[in-house]
């Protein structure tokens, strides 16, 4: 984790990550039958991850195209390892997007400091 930088920097600062948002969608060309074959195992493995505390939040997408998880891990590598153990992913049937997330850093400005004074 990097130290907070002053406001002269041009690069956005890296932020603390307390979890990883994972977007899972079926790969293009994957058929319903291919997915169905592994779905019972996928459901059970997902529930086990939740019971192990690895899955903090789980959602189905409203468009029916997949699922969204928030995982309890500190970086994308750890999240990838967790998700790779799920049947649909180990069978290479899903596209994955990983976004590390953490505290909404700009709220720090409410405590005072340069950004707050600018407001």
């Amino acid at each position: 984790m990097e130290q907070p930088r002053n406001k002269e920097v041009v690069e956005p600062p890296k932020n603390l990550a307390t979890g990883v948002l994972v977007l899972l969608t079926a790969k293009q060309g994957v058929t319903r039958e291919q997915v169905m074959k592994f779905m019972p195992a996928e459901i059970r493995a997902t529930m086990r991850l939740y019971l192990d505390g690895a899955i903090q939040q789980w959602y189905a997408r409203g468009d029916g195209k997949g699922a969204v998880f928030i995982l309890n891990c500190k970086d994308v590598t750890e999240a990838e390892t967790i998700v790779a153990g799920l049947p649909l992913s180990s069978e290479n049937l899903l596209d994955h997007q990983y976004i590390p997330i953490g505290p909404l850093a700009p709220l720090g400005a409410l405590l005072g400091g340069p950004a707050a004074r600018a407001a």
Partner: protein
Amino acid sequence: MKFMIPFLVAMVPLASVAQSQSGTAPGLPSVAIPKTTEVLVIQTPRQGVTFQQVMAVIPAEIRATVNLYLDGKIREWYSRGDGKGVVFLVDANTEDEARNIMETLPLAKEHLMDTEYIPVGPLMPLRALMGPGAQP
């Protein structure tokens, strides 16, 4: 496991199924599609937008964001660990409702952000663990 099949079919994420505006996928039974309980919003600065451009609006953005939270519109808020924006879970039942909320924010008004909206709801596949009597 045979009893599970109707439920399993219902929740398969099918890339081939076109997304409709209403959020329902034709060809999937209605049990497949969760009720949208919130909308995931992923915001990243547009290509070419500088850190300084964003920072100029951030004081107003913070205050407007906290006001949305205090109004109950933002359920969860996160910074991206890669520094490329924010992730919100917005209290909305449709993408349009979420868009109307988010477009009140200063960074959006200045057209500085790309925004992705993903309606989400209960993880419907879990119904399969409920056994044969688990009709919706």
